[in-house]
């Protein structure tokens, strides 16, 4: 079973050289810590920052320089700052090659829900609807089950949707899944986790095609 850090680490393997990448709040943010050697990527933060760097050295933090998670950050040399219209022009215009974000539910048709639990939790979608409606590559980083042990990898989303038919890859604490042909294809298992264990907590249709390798971290 992967830790959150390890989920991020596994997702980082999906990065490709020269990609611009938007990382959502939570696990996705951690992906920045695991950029593979020899690969150059730039991180975009939808509040208006390209070339986002690490957290500032203590004492140099600037209230006027935050990321989309409202954390103080830095700008790398060669970065740029811009307004929200320009930022979402980049996103909708598909200039950002990869979006990594969390989810409450993912369905086998590629639907994703991550912004609202009716009558209970209503934080809003932020930039997520723009991101999932636009990105060519979307990776969802999530726990395979919720706190009650119920599957979040579903036949159909029960929560209000963030986007329809857009997710193609999911990395959970248990598995790497690809969504195609209306089903979840099991690509990799977390170290020490069996196919059966994954099957047991996957409500959606799971396709297991041949031997499923363990993730290499």
């Amino acid at each position: 079973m992967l830790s959150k850090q390890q989920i991020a680490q596994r997702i980082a393997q999906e990065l490709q050289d020269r990609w611009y990448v938007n990382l959502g709040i939570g696990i996705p943010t951690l992906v920045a810590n695991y950029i593979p050697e020899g690969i150059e990527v730039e991180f975009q933060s939808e509040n208006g920052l390209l070339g986002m760097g690490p957290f500032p050295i203590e004492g140099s933090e600037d209230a006027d320089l935050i990321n989309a998670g409202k954390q103080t950050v830095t700008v790398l040399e060669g970065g740029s700052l811009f307004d929200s219209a320009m930022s979402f022009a980049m996103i909708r215009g598909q200039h950002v090659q990869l979006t990594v974000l969390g989810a409450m539910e993912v369905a086998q048709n590629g639907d994703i829900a991550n912004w609202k639990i009716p009558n209970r939790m209503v934080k809003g979608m932020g930039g997520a609807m723009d991101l999932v409606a636009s990105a060519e590559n979307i990776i969802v980083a999530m726990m395979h089950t919720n706190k009650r042990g119920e599957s979040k990898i579903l036949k159909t989303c029960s929560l209000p949707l963030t986007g329809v038919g857009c997710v193609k890859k999911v990395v959970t604490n248990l598995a790497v899944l690809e969504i195609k042909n209306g089903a979840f294809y099991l690509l990799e298992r977390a170290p020490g986790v069996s196919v059966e264990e994954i099957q047991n907590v996957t409500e959606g249709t799971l396709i297991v095609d041949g031997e499923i390798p363990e993730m290499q971290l």
Partner: protein
Amino acid sequence: MINKVVKNAKEALEGVENGMTFMLGGFGLCGIPENSISELVHLGVTDLTCISNNAGVDDFGLGLLLQKRQIKKMISSYVGENDEFERQMLSGELEVDLIPQGTLAERCRASGAGIPAFYTPAGYGTEVAEGKETREFNGKMYVLERAFDAQFAFVKAWKGDTAGNLIFKGTARNFNPMMAMAGKITVVEVEELVTVGELDPNQIHTPGIFVQRIFQGKDYEKRIEQRTVQTKE
């Protein structure tokens, strides 16, 4: 040059009334018009519709207006930082229109740019698109979104000159430039008000034509929501 300077927040907010629709710049607590918000609290105007990406935190930013029940309706993309907000919304005291962040930004720009409506992919197939026209272009589905109509826009800039030209700093820029374009009356508070000629015409973020009133702000708190740092090695 046409001079846009007013003395202070009080003068800048002249004409503000109950029931009006406002735009307020900022992302989280970054780049919010602190002085104008204080003055709105002071004026006690109510039944406001506020277009702002976020709703502040309980005791700062738009949270101050929520505390006093001055806001009737919020149009935002993310409001997760404010418990009082969530309470008012779930109890039905507060009307809330949650819309995708890029749609919010583009609707603000459209309002200022004379574009009454545009198509965007964001929210297609979700409840955001309910009741809205959808349409296919090049095999992909889009939602028709409209421009806003706001009486006042409250904007915070870093530097501004007396002609209303603005420069923003860092990610405090965010929604401020589009809202500056969109307000029927755009009120700008700046950290540093300079004379014309001090700003490079080639490096203006918001040309003065969009600004009706500008004033020297004061007592900026610039609160940080998530102070994340690394310790020096």
